[in-house]
């Protein structure tokens, strides 16, 4: 994997948003610039707020992991289901590891908060649980990604989506 250029510092407000019940997807690309999307869980911002970690299901993310091994380029998009407030972070994935216990606890917290928020907009808990199970039904194994964000964008839908934060 490549080294990150320079990390942005994540504000306390943004950290709270990223670690809430947001919907998280990860975008990568291969050597031919063909993109790949996978869903991620349990985003955690490091204590120094310069890196973040998140887990992806191994069974559904093989191409993503290959892409990251090849070039490390990553985009992480987080959207609040109740308001569509959306933030995108772009940077480098500097490490893929087995998740630590803290990462797995973050995944559980995220799963719970994501279900709670969706329930508020009429998407019942039972349905979010089914959605979650679909992610892991082939294999329960998760892989942890450590990411250095280099740029942060406001991705809330509208004419200004994509402007730097």
């Amino acid at each position, binding site marked *: 994997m490549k080294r990150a250029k320079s990390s942005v510092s994540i504000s306390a407000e943004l950290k709270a948003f990223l670690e809430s019940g947001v919907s998280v997807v990860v975008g990568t690309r291969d050597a031919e610039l063909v993109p790949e*999307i996978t869903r991620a869980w349990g985003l955690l911002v490091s204590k120094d707020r310069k890196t973040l970690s998140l887990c992806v299901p191994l069974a*559904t993310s093989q191409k993503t992991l290959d892409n990251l091994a090849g070039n490390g380029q*990553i985009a992480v998009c987080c959207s609040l289901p109740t308001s569509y407030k959306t933030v995108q972070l772009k940077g480098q994935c500097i490490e893929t590891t087995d998740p630590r216990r803290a990462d797995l606890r973050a995944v559980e917290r995220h799963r719970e908060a994501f279900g709670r928020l969706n329930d508020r907009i*009429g998407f019942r808990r039972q349905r979010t649980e089914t959605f979650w199970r679909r992610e892991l*039904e082939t294999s329960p194994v998760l892989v942890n990604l450590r990411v250095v964000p280099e740029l942060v964008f*406001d991705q*809330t*839908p509208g004419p200004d989506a994509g402007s730097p934060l």
Partner: protein
Amino acid sequence: MIAPSPLTVPLENIAPCFEGILPSTICSCSREGTPNLTYLSIVHLLDPRHVGLSYQFFNKTRKNILENPMVQVVVISPETLYQYRLSLCYERTEMEGPTFDRMKSNLDAVASQTGMSHVFRLHGVDVYRVLDCRPVSSQAPAESFPKADPLPELEAFSERLAACADLDSLLDTALDALSTIFGIDHSFVMALDEDGTRLYTLASHGYAESGVGSEVWVGGGILGVAAERRVVVRTTSLAREMVFSRAVRSTVEHQGKETVLEKEIALPGLPNVQSQLVAPLVARDRLWGVLCLQSAVTGRFLAGDERLIQIAARHLAATMAMLARPDAMAPKAAPPRRTAERSPMSAVVKHYGSDDSIFIDDTYLIKGVAGRIFWKLVQSHARTGRVDFTNKEIRLDSDLKLPDIKDNLEARLILLRRRLEARCDFLRLISVGRGQFHMEVQRQLNLEQHL
């Protein structure tokens, strides 16, 4: 020419993924190799090998696809909650044509409802060729939704309509048949007023309040846009669309550009409506009104339902047009009537000339053309004791200054009759044969004319 290899999962097998019930995501990639993600409210299925995405704002995705046409979209099945990855290649942008018009009407209708007409503008439809469609999970079934044969239901619906002899029973029969035959429990019909500027509710089914007489402007909101453009407007997840729209509204407000925003219009009907289908009622190349179906369930009305309801709506409109013609059929014999017993109580009927509004004992009844007709009837009753009237004499009464659309008189009388049923328990209009009606008055009426 070599035929393209078949998709791992044919798009028609996962058709509900393209109804906008659950959001999708798109990932594009710049020439320099930086991926970019965006959430999408809907991916449109155009044909077995193409999908369309709305182009509203020039954003990073748009910049990227012009540099590198390869993108990936992930859609979610609202039925099974399995996800599917679509490998796409951007081909072209359509800025006119049937696909563009259909997407534009839907977008404009929701934008008008949410006061965002000046913000949501469809510049084009980005058309992508689908290179493959693969399930995210290897456990995902090969989803397939067999097409039900709608002909028996359509036949039963047309049979029920064919048995109607007047507009009044036609409207009730049609809405009841939509419920019993198609399982659509909440519906209403709005008629176009004489000058073509407003729609008023003429009949409804399945609501706590009938809403008869309520109005919307033609061109405003989902109902008004469907009427103005004579197109079907279908929404599958209204609550989510409203959240999406409010997110955009808040960013516009944040920019200090509130002047481009208009007021959000309250949706009539179900308070928790999720799915809605509005079909124009067109016959003899004239718009008669709209048929609106509602459901509290997301994804209740899908693409197949849209086609089915279009046929049902056209049949309803054609029958409305036929029954509303003054000379449609010879009058049938009037049934014998009982004489209403007059109570010793009296009531005050007020008429305000500025808008022809009518109040009975200070309770609002109706206004406009129907108010003018009602005032004429009660005046005649007060002067001479008359209780029997004909549509023809009303149509020919020059004092009433009726608009020059004669077919609307029947609709106005139905509106008046239904408003009286809902608001007044001592005064009724009873149809006693084609083109004739009886006014049953159980109290002494004291009339007051106001400016």
